[in-house]
């Protein structure tokens, strides 16, 4: 059976991701203190609170408009590196759902693909550069692989697992972007906070649908 999700379920999916960040932002700032400037928990929380606010305030039914408003408010939330990165993610997701009201598994994956591609343009980072992309890119591959299952929940669970693995893997890498880029070997052993956040977002997405 081909399961689908609608506007309100997507709102629930986003809110569930917000919950993950609310529960973990202090740990994320501690991670950033080791390799960056110690504020990633603060910035990702601020951006995700902007998501929550936008979702609650946006009394409409149009998915593109919802995600577009989310993107703009996220970018407007002083999110350090996180703001523009997640902002472009949501902007790309918004473009990808133009005209749709119900999303099946394939279109959910297409939505994330559109977002991650847009994000990738800002980021310029590849897997192994110790950034959010170490979680985003494997997550995307995993959900694409799960499209045949037709199950949105399965696709997002696979994505979450892949993102978590990707975030864990960043411990071995030197950083090629962000504030950690100059630290050479000294960041080895520390997970990249942004990639951990991304894995939490997908955990939230998968639990939220």
């Amino acid at each position, binding site marked *: 059976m081909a399961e689908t999700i609608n506007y309100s379920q997507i709102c629930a999916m986003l809110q569930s991701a917000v919950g993950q960040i609310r529960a973990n932002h*202090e740990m994320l*700032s*501690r991670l950033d*203190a080791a390799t*960056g*400037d*110690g*504020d990633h*928990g*603060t*910035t990702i929380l*601020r951006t995700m609170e902007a998501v929550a606010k936008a979702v609650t305030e946006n009394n409409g039914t149009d998915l593109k408009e919802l995600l577009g408003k989310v993107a*703009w408010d*996220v*970018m*407007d*939330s*002083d*999110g*350090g*590196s*996180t*703001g*523009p*990165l997640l*902002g*472009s993610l949501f902007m790309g997701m918004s473009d990808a759902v133009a005209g749709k009201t119900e999303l099946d598994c394939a279109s959910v994956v297409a939505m994330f693909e559109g977002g991650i591609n847009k994000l990738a343009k*800002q980021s310029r980072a590849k897997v192994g550069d110790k950034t959010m992309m170490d979680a985003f890119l494997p997550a995307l591959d995993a959900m694409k692989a799960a499209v045949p299952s037709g199950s949105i929940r399965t696709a997002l669970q696979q994505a979450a697992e892949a993102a978590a693995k990707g975030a864990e893997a960043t411990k071995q890498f030197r950083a090629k*972007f*962000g*504030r*950690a*880029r*100059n*630290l050479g070997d*000294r960041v080895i052993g520390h997970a990249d906070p942004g990639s951990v956040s991304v894995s939490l977002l997908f955990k939230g997405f998968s639990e939220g649908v």
Partner: protein
Amino acid sequence: MPMKKFINDPKNLTKELLEGFAIAHSDIVTVKSDKIVCRAQPKPASKVALVTLGGAGHEPALSGFVGEGGLDYSVVGDIFAAPGPPKVIEALRMAKRDAGILFVVLNHAGDVMCANMAAEMADKEGIKYKMLVTHEDIAPGADAPAEDKRGLVGCIPLYKIAGAAAEAGKSLDEVFAIASRFNDNMATLAVAMRTATHPASGQNIFELADDEMEIGMGQHGEAGTGPSKILSADQTAEMMLSRLVLAIKAKKGDRLLLVINGSGATTLMEMYIMLGGCKKYLDTLGITIAAAHCGEWLTVQEMAGFQMFAARMDDELLNYFKAPCSTPALTVK
């Protein structure tokens, strides 16, 4: 445990500090749309405007340099976090003019991404600007790729020089050329002695042992080239300045602008002692100090340490650096 800071709700830091800033300097600046610091008396539209962006928590930087002979618009982000592209494009729209805009961005991941996104929008809207990215931190090595070098205190004298050139009625191309020449001949190296508390998270931005200092520390607690034992002021001066002199290729007869920029808890007493040490070292090389400043231009909360800045100057750059200005943090007659 409460923070050892005089604050209210950590969520309102930037809002409340800008309120106090506006009270203290109402004759020079006004704050528009929450986070855009502009001049109380705008510069004539016939002259090039200066726009910059950056996180708060570095007071008096960046907004303390808005005013005549300085910046026109400073877009303020939250503590150590770049403001979002929407506010930045809003400021670029406010500054929009035929004379054009010099858009100065410090090289930090978030700032550059925000600036690029805002610049994309500005292009679409036909706003005339030139973007200049400062990246003078030599901690990763004097000849590391520009992307690896952070923008530190060097932006401040650059605002001053570009601001004076703009007041003098130079075109955007000329202002950009002058600012770029300064940008290409400046270098900064930081040293940290004690950590600071992040005023939003309440956590230390880094840790340092009781008998250690760290060269190359970034201005948000990003680690530098690793801890080392504490040296005397004169040893520190020679060790840091020798690297700066190499980086800017200063030689006998050259004239420098030298800045000892305190990070917060390092006293002006120490900065003056450092300047004395720098003079002793430069004398051995036959390099002169054409202008010097000791004080807090760009801080890192109450971090102990400083950024040592040096730039190779020519007559034009010196004249613009010494030209009059009236900003909250710097007044020159």
